[in-house]
């Protein structure tokens, strides 16, 4: 009985949380004159794909979509690797300047991102002179900068998860003769998997939704544009195309949900590993 009540309550909350999203999807399917209407209704009798058609016919939609996916996935992959190593170092070892480093990781997150676009722009311009793939107009510049912005957070976050793994486990593994390397990747890594899921979702969303850097760095190479920027075409000073914005946002939200469902499985197996250990 208690569980039924709790579950009912949780489902109601889920409905409330999801409602704005439902409204977004609904608006994407509504015909234009129903979107801005004096009597909004939570359904539509004349569903239409017009808004999606407009969103999808943005030239090169597929290309932009792939660019966004590539950037986001590389960022997630690299940030998992690098932040896992760094978090282990910061948790399992004691050395001087450790606290300083930790504080620095916080400080860099506090700087307003907009303020950094100017110095980063010039940095990328010089980087591009020696390594073109990481310079302006290339996806590499976006990967680098998103990686830099997701790392401090990912490291901080993973620290907590690494710290939660009992030190005795490491000692036991060492006694069993496992090398440090094996311990790191075969024991510790699966154990902190739930934490990795949370950080990678965040890195993914961060890289996926960004358009500040995309519009600053990708100046003349249209083929390297990312999706959020392409959808900006519907936001106009004079007349917003709400239907297309909603359709575009719907399309943008789907990959993140898919990504979450994929890593969700990983989260479960990570937990299974923890139980076995």
């Amino acid at each position, binding site marked *: 009985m208690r*569980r039924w009540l*709790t*579950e009912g309550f*949780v*489902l109601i*909350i*889920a409905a409330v*949380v*999801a*409602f*704005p*999203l439902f*409204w*977004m999807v609904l*608006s994407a399917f509504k015909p234009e004159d129903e979107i801005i*209407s*004096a*009597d*909004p209704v*939570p359904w539509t009798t004349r569903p239409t794909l017009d808004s999606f058609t407009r969103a999808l016919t943005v030239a090169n939609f597929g290309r932009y979509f792939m660019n966004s996916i590539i950037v986001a996935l590389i960022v997630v992959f690299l940030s998992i690797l690098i932040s896992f*190593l*760094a978090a*282990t*170092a*910061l948790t399992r*070892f004691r*050395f001087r300047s450790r*606290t300083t480093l930790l504080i620095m*990781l*916080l400080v*860099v997150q*506090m*700087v*307003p991102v*907009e*303020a*950094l676009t100017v*110095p*980063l722009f010039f*940095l990328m311009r010089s980087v591009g002179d020696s390594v073109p793939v990481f310079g302006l107009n290339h996806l590499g510049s976006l990967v680098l900068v998103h*990686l830099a912005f997701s*790392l401090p957070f990912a*490291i901080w*976050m993973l*620290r*907590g*998860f690494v710290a939660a793994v009992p030190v005795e486990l490491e000692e036991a593994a060492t006694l069993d003769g496992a090398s*440090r390397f094996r311990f790191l990747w075969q024991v510790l890594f699966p154990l902190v998997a*739930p*934490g990795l899921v*949370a950080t990678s*979702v965040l890195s993914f969303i961060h890289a996926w*939704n960004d358009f500040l850097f995309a519009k600053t760095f990708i100046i003349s190479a249209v083929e390297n544009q990312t999706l*959020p920027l392409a959808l900006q075409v519907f*936001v106009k000073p004079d007349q917003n195309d*709400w239907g297309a*914005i909603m359709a575009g*946002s719907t399309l943008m939200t789907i990959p993140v*949900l898919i990504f*979450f469902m994929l890593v969700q499985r990983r989260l479960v197996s990570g937990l299974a590993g923890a139980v076995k250990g």
Partner: protein
Amino acid sequence: MTAKGQGRTAFAYLAPALLILGGLLAYPIYQLVLISLYDYGQEQVSGGAPLEFLGLGNYRNLLGNQQFWGVLGQTVAFAAVCVVGTLLVGAFLAILATRVRTWVRMTLFLAALGAWSTPAVAGSTIWLFLFDANFGLVNEVLGTQGFSWTFDKWTAFGLVAAQVIWCSFPFVMVTLFAGIKAIPGEVLEAAALDGASAFRTAWSVTLPLLKPIILVVTIQSIIWDFKVFTQIYVMTNGGGIAGRNLVLNVYAYQQAFAASEYGLGAAIGVVMTVLLLGITMFYLRALRRSGEVL
């Protein structure tokens, strides 16, 4: 292992992170501080005009501005409400999530993840739609057609805070849930065998184990909510009627970045960073006094 050996291995693990952070964050931040000491506009950036060193001129300008102090106070209060709200909602739902069957939990997580992953601009727009004075569903349901949620200073702040909590509680919830799940079952079983009540277990076993994670989500929430931009910008139409809903980041954007006054913008950025650092340090010290180590 010797202390020196430890340091060496640690450094090897840290090297990739340090390389990226040093080059792509530390160096630009150093540049930012430099820029804040100059009169640095678009003309200077593109090389059309010589640089002029102002020393602390940009800072004097800023700190002498009365509006800045008003906006600052508003920002702190607004961020505080958002942080507390996000943590409470997130923690409450994380605990509930451990007590329901998987499919119910997945439903909640999917809904939350949807909220989390909605692009900030789109999320703000949808909320505005729902709460629109004339065309919004909320007024239609409440029978308050024509009531503007964004006109009054306090309802506007409340609405934006609700939206911010909506899209940031999932992070707290998912993280705390992962943390709770990572606690070895034996520990909880042991507590149960000792006859501790559910509440006692939560308070004296689960909570202490979760402390590192709670610390992280709290600090992150402070950092994010202090820098809220999109929601205020979109939902209050650039800072509310006559700028009465401005927060620091939007203020900085309007006063500096939109007008290409990068010197002043950099100064605001530096001031914001120092302030945030102060708040975080205060929080960390309070924690340390209660026995928690960094």
